[in-house]
């Protein structure tokens, strides 16, 4: 039941102003005088019963009545009455607004985006704010962002709301829920409202410290989009591009798929996709030179979301892998020599001649400084672990290993025996290794046997035992380890398989070390950044779909394209039951946000209307006196 409440009840004291108003009215009332032959007839008129009816009495003092009504309306408006909503309205209301890519989808009929609809509702709630209520606005897509503190400043809230724009990112609730939860320490937050189109991940791993209310608007109109784009080397001079397109409706919808290489259209075909039937395409592209490939989808009919219609992929020119192996590691050399697309540096030099390699296999820790994407050290304890691990002259065996690690994929190490035994020094353990940035890939009976360390885009594997002093070279897993190392090097050099980058953060780019670069985003923004010591450019935000150019000065040194590449967003799938931790949260259709309905403005409008009527009546009465 709606109850009338007042924010400023003390404003009722202003009703006392009615007393001086009435007194002043009678004191100041001046009527034009008019001499008449006799008052007989007019006195009869005044005495007439019809004139003295209660309604007519009111009319006789209509101006006073209007002024009393006007004053009462103004005072009531000043008291800020509001109709209390049925929902229990909290004093502090965090509103989380979904700004993911699907929120940019539009209705075929109205042309309004989902975000526009939500903005309208939030705007109304902000305008209906009552005195003690405060709102904090958050937006979220892949991450959360707080737009305003808790405030009842309508202007600030509306200003922040107008700045909310849909991004080209998929929706993730976890971050923004954590941000809202952080506020529960400072404010008594009872309920958090999420405004979305329902296109959310089905699960959020978060313990709710408050009631979560998910309000959703209807999903947008039909949509088609590209959800996957990868490229794989199919031969020494050819790439194969794999594309997957999806639709949001059960009906098949047509579209034209175009492939543009370095700005020229090289391929075009018609596809039909639906929610159930994805279209998968393989398109060959020559690998003779570096190419910037754009897959562009041109829908045949209405398409509610544009951002998932284009995906970019940067393909390098094909080349053999550059490998250096220490001359004493004959087993490794033999294993590498049988692999395709590998150029093994000839000679018996103890150190590599070149400066850049894709893969080195070394038996000396001093070669750690060589610039190579992948490094394998055999029989070497990393220098920074010298005080943690020692290699004893004892027999060691493999206890366990990481079967999913890229280097050990498909490798069986169960019965491998080592003639030396890497072991922890007294008082040290796996934590001391991990603290130094290493990950144990294989454990022996006394300590780690194989370590992995990642630095930027580079990875190094450390065999703490010499493979020649083990049974590993005699096992079938050894050439697989070599092949895995080569494969990892190919991946690192983007020579075997490349996946188009989704929006969010640009993948790391290998450039010159410690250089300043400028990243030009698709919407023209320029982000100044600097490569790290390993020559990797990391952490460049990529909220928009499109081409990102990395410039050194005015020269473009690299280009990366991004795409939405999210089937969930493209299909505009609506999640009705969101699992947050162990609890199910049902999303409800958003008709209108429940809030207290302030009614001061209708009162103020009525007061204004009364004032205008009074002015008109007064002018009319004055102008007509003869």
């Amino acid at each position, binding site marked *: 039941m709606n109850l009338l409440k007042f924010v400023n009840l003390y404003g009722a004291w202003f009703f006392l102003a009615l007393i001086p108003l009435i007194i002043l009215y009678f004191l100041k*009332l001046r*009527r*034009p*005088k*008019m*001499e*008449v*032959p*006799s*008052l*007989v*007839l*007019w*006195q*009869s*008129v*005044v005495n*007439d019963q*019809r*004139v003295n009816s209660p309604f007519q009495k009111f*009319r*006789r*003092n*209509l*101006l006073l009545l209007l002024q009393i009504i006007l004053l009462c309306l103004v005072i009531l408006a000043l008291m800020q009455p509001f109709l209390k909503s049925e929902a229990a309205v909290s004093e502090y209301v965090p509103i989380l607004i979904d700004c993911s890519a699907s929120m940019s989808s539009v209705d075929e009929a109205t042309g309004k985006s989902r975000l526009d609809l939500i903005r309208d509702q939030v705007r109304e709630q902000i305008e209906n704010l009552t005195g003690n209520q405060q709102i904090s606005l958050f937006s979220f897509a892949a991450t959360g962002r707080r737009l305003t503190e808790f405030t009842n400043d309508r202007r600030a809230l509306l200003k922040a709301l107008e700045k909310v724009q849909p991004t080209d990112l998929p929706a993730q609730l976890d971050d923004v829920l954590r941000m809202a939860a952080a506020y529960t320490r400072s404010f008594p937050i009872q309920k958090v409202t999420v405004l979305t189109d329902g296109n959310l991940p089905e699960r959020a791993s978060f313990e709710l410290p408050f009631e979560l209310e998910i309000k959703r608007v209807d999903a947008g109109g039909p949509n088609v989009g590209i959800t996957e784009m990868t490229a794989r080397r199919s031969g020494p001079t050819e790439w194969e591009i794999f594309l997957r397109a999806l639709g949001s409706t059960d009906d098949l919808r047509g579209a034209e798929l175009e492939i543009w290489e370095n700005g020229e259209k090289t391929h075009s075909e018609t596809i039909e996709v639906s929610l159930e039937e994805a279209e998968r395409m393989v398109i060959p592209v020559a690998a003779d030179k570096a190419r910037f490939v754009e897959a562009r989808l041109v829908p045949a009919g209405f398409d509610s979301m544009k951002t998932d219609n284009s995906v970019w992929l940067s393909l390098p020119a094909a080349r053999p892998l550059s490998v250096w192996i220490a001359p004493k590691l004959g087993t490794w050399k033999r294993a590498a020599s049988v692999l395709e697309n590998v150029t093994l540096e000839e000679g018996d030099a103890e150190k590599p001649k070149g400066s850049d390699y894709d893969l080195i296999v070394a038996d000396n820790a001093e070669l750690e400084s060589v610039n190579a994407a992948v490094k394998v050290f055999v029989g070497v304890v990393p220098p920074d672990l010298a005080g943690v691990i020692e290699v004893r002259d004892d027999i060691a065996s493999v206890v366990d290993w990481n079967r999913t690690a890229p280097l050990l994929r498909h490798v069986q190490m169960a019965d491998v025996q080592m003639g030396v035994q890497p072991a922890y020094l007294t008082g040290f353990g796996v934590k001391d290794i991990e603290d130094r940035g290493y990950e144990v890939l294989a454990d022996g009976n006394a300590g780690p046997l194989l370590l992995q360390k990642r630095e930027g885009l580079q990875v190094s594997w450390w065999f703490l035992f010499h493979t020649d002093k083990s049974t590993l070279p005699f096992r079938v897993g050894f050439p697989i380890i070599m092949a895995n190392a080569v494969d990892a090097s190919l991946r690192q050099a983007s020579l075997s398989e490349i996946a188009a980058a989704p929006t969010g953060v640009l993948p790391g780019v290998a450039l010159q070390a410690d250089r300043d670069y400028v990243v030009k985003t698709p919407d023209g923004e320029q982000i100044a950044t600097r490569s790290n010591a390993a020559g990797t450019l990391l952490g460049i935000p990529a909220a928009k779909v499109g081409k990102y150019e990395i410039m050194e000065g005015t020269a473009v040194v690299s280009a990366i394209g991004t795409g939405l590449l999210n089937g969930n967003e493209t299909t505009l799938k609506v999640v009705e039951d969101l699992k947050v931790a162990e609890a199910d949260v049902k999303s409800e259709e958003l008709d209108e946000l429940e809030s207290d309905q302030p009614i001061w403005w209708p009162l103020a409008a009525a007061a204004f209307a009364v004032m205008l009527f009074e002015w008109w009546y007064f002018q*009319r*009465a*004055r102008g*007509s*006196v*003869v």
Partner: protein
Amino acid sequence: MTETATRFTSLFDNSTLSQIERMRLRPLRRLTNRARGEHLSGKGGSSTDFADFRDYAVGDDLRYVDWNIFARLRRPYIKQFQHEEEMHVVLMVDASTSMMFDNKLLLAKQAAAAMGIMGLHNVERVSAYAMHSQDGKPWMLPPGTGRTRIRQLLQFLEQLEGGGNIPVERAIETMLRFHRGRGVAILISDFLSFGDLARPFNLLFSSGLEVWGLQILSDAEINPNVQGDLRFIDSETQETLDITNASELLSVYHDQRLWLQQNLDSMCRSRQGRFLSVSSSMSIQTVLFEHLCRQGWVQR
């Protein structure tokens, strides 16, 4: 010589005057005085005009027995003849302040003069009274007859000035203190009085006077053009009355005005009299030759 200089009276022009001289009043009940006049009495008289027969009664003059009828019927009948007797015409002109609006008083004086002239031309006794002062003896023209009296009547009316606040009922009672004689009392006024007119009308009727009421209202009283909030001031008493949104009350005003006229008409008719309401914007010719003639007040 200008036309004004040759006019007999300032109240109307000579042609109107000559037309008036050919007209006579038409009372309803023929209330007359014993004095001989030119007004035909309802009673048997001694004129040469036969009126009726009646049974002989002891003491009747035998000269009036119709012997031809006696010879045929063997019963005596007395012949009656119409008696021309004198009728008293009392003119009462309201000259109070309320009559000083929009030529009301002028029309009242013209109407009084016209009817007075008609009476004097027909050898009636005519007296005139002005209603304007509450104190002392009223402004009056004593009863008189004969055409020579016309000049005095016109002078009396021409010199009559407006002002004063005597109500109609009080003026009638004052007049009756000085008046003797039967006939017609012609009251020319706006009849806008807070008092009760029934009593003075009864006094007039019991004094043998037909009550003829001629109400003269100005256009501002018949169709007042007022709007908004006003403070009306009574011209006679200076009392005030606050009216709010006067335009909204006009329909009630008209109802009240019509009710007053109907009430006056009813009071006059119930006392064998007449009532007529005219506007001060009308000319005396229109009032006399159209309204009064049509209503049977006067005869041409």
